């Protein structure tokens, strides 16, 4: 999902803050590719709106990198992935040398020749062999070329407000494990606090509504798309999607337990949750970071649980962020870009020094450390990285335990392969209809949307 990037990037933004030269042992920076002549690259830095301190700290990080790599000059530019601006930047050729895209767009961009081939550069780094196979697949195109480096992954999760659970007489340590329980808990929450939403779903027209519906569909054992590329089929009218929409319809119009805000987006749902207005909602396992840094959440209310799964083939939707390189970059620039990706994105995941450097930086800014993410590298590397940061962990781990324990047994489902964002966009209006029209005819809506979705697959895969 597109908005994930912001969350993940903001983690790094914080990672950049407060890092001081004395704290950082810059290791592993000597290039495996050998000495490079002077080369200049631009890199995506922080989200727009980063504080001055964060910017200064990021620049310090850049300076460290440049010191360790005298031949490389790094220029940082603010960067924010959104559908429209990305298309414009892509067309205009104004992307930085290193930028990030969501899992949803990586392969399609690679197929279209919009991303540099990183295969022979990436292979030289130790972490390359440690990738979780499902995750590196997101950065691999149909010909087996590496066109992007996965740098963060997440699984969808049920976020719940422990404070509201207590208020409603529910047990904050036993979050719902079935959708029927989600429904009844939501009713109980609304009964206890009529101003809150028992359960909320995103409903904005920026593909987030479709993203959540896809998550629910997977959790009910359905799929919104099968097959890959031009041969993909939109299957919006599957029983899983119908069940998910029926549940939303019941909670919205019969139980009246979904509150009053139906246009929530990724950020605004975090905001509403942090403000105590939402009992439960679905978002990535790592949104706690955003809730802390942007919305000042009271850690005591935060609870994280795995999504209830129902039916055969049910699974948890996962996603993540890829670091990619502009296709027009020269070989020297690509090599330099990979060094930056190694330093900034991969070392915190794969080396002790990198992990500690990152944790120290976060700590200095009192930002969350230890927010559950999905392993980008293999289990061994993941466990090691967890061990390295253990002394720094400052998030309410116990309140996230039911997620971290539960997710290990749940099947993880990748996002729809073909024209993912367009599929989400086509599903947005279905969710919105169910949320805003008590007489919404769910099968008819899905039928109509399915035709649009199939058309999106055809358009998106048309030879251009």
């Amino acid at each position, binding site marked *: 999902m597109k908005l994930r990037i*912001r969350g993940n990037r903001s983690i790094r933004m914080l990672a950049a803050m407060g890092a001081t030269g004395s704290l950082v042992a810059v290791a592993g920076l000597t290039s495996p590719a050998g000495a490079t002549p002077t080369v200049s690259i631009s890199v995506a830095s922080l*989200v*727009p*709106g980063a*504080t*001055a301190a964060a910017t200064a700290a990021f620049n310090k990080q850049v300076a460290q990198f440049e010191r360790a790599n005298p031949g490389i000059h790094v220029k940082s*530019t*603010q960067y*924010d992935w959104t559908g429209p*601006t990305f298309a*414009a*930047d892509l*067309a*205009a*050729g*104004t992307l930085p040398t290193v930028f990030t895209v969501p899992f949803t767009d990586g392969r399609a961009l690679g197929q279209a020749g919009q991303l540099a081939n990183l295969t022979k550069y990436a292979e030289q780094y130790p972490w390359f062999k440690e990738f979780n196979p499902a995750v590196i697949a997101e950065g691999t195109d149909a010909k087996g070329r590496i066109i992007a480096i996965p740098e963060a992954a997440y699984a969808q999760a049920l976020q719940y407000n422990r404070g509201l659970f207590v208020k409603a007489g529910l047990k904050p340590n036993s979050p719902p494990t079935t959708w029927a329980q989600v429904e009844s808990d939501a009713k109980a929450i609304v009964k206890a606090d009529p101003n809150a939403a028992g359960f909320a779903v995103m409903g904005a027209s920026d593909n987030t509504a479709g993203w959540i519906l896809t998550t629910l569909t997977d959790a009910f054992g359905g799929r919104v798309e099968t097959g890959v590329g031009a041969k993909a089929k939109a299957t919006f009218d599957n029983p899983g999607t119908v069940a998910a929409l029926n549940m939303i319809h019941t909670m919205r119009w019969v139980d009246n337990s979904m509150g009053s805000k139906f246009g929530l*987006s*990724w*950020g*605004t749902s975090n*905001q509403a949750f942090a*403000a105590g*207005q939402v009992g439960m909602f679905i978002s990535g396992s790592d949104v706690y970071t955003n809730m802390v840094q*942007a*919305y*000042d959440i009271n850690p005591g209310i935060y609870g994280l649980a795995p999504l209830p799964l129902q039916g055969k083939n049910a699974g948890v939707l996962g996603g993540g962020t890829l670091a990619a390189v502009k296709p027009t970059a020269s070989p020297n620039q690509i090599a330099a870009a990979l060094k930056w990706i190694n330093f900034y994105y991969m070392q915190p995941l794969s080396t002790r020094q990198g992990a500690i450097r990152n944790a120290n930086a976060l700590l200095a800014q009192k930002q969350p450390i230890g927010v559950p993410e999905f392993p980008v590298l293999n289990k061994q590397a993941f466990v090691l990285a967890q061990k390295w940061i253990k002394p720094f962990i400052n998030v309410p781990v116990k309140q996230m335990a039911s997620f971290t324990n539960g997710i290990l047994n749940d099947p993880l489902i990748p996002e729809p392969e073909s024209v993912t964002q367009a599929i989400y966009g086509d599903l947005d209006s279905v969710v919105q209809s169910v949320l805003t029209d008590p007489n919404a005819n769910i099968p008819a809506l899905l039928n109509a949307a399915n035709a649009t979705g199939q058309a999106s697959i055809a358009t998106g895969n048309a030879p251009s």
Partner: protein
Amino acid sequence: MRAWPIRRKPRKRDDAGPQSFVLSSDWRRPSVRWGLGTTHVVLLILLIIIGLGPILWLAKSALTPTLDTITSPMAWFPHGLTWSNLSSAWTNVDVGLYMRNTVVIALGSWAFQIVVATTGAYALSVLRPKYGKVIMALLLTTLFVPAVVLLVPLYVEVVHPPLIHTSFVNNYLAVWLPESASAFNVVLMKRFFDNLPREILEAARIDGCGPFRLFVSIVLPMSRPILGVVSIFAVIASWKDYLWPLLVLGNPNLQPLSVRLPNIEQFTPLGVFLAALALTCVVPIVGFLIFRRLIVRGSGLSGALKG
């Protein structure tokens, strides 16, 4: 020299008021006096609520803690004032930087528009080349094509300009130049030049004044009123522009406030965001109060501009 009419008429309106269907004789009738008087008081109250109310609410919310604004938006400082919204709007949102960008964009647009409109109108109105009529016709045709529908070809042109092979994306010229292609400005300016007294221009010419000196020393000084009107339009239009800068100024460091604010909406606490909106309003409101007469008088023309 004849006085510029734009001055004359509205001043009369401000002083004496427009022609009124309620005559003094009507005012003497008690029913009229009470009826109209009450209507006017009601109208004033409604105008205050509707015209000023939202802005006052914004000002209030800029000084109210976020949580209070979310839970009870219409309450009057239930937990007191806070200045932190404004200060973090200034430091974290960096309103100052974006206001500076907005000003730079507006000033550049203004300069380009003035140069194009004055020189072009001068050539068409005073110098009158033979092909002037053709150019005028072509200019007037563009009035039928609203700028917004040229979005796609203009964007493609700015990204891949023909002849010059450098992208103009993230370059203020990409905003300034297209905005200066305003047929409305040229027509307005030309209409004014058409009405300049020809005797003075002829006299200057006979005295050996060349076209350049005629323009700089005679025509421009005589055109201060229309320069004011076009300047105000240029600055206001630029201040309000959104879609075009959104497309061509992808670099956040270059964006004007209008582009920046929607981008940060999701990531900014409500109180800080509203404070940023309030700060954004300060310059236009102060500018309006200073140039009130000029702006209000020109409003009818800007209505025509939208067509």
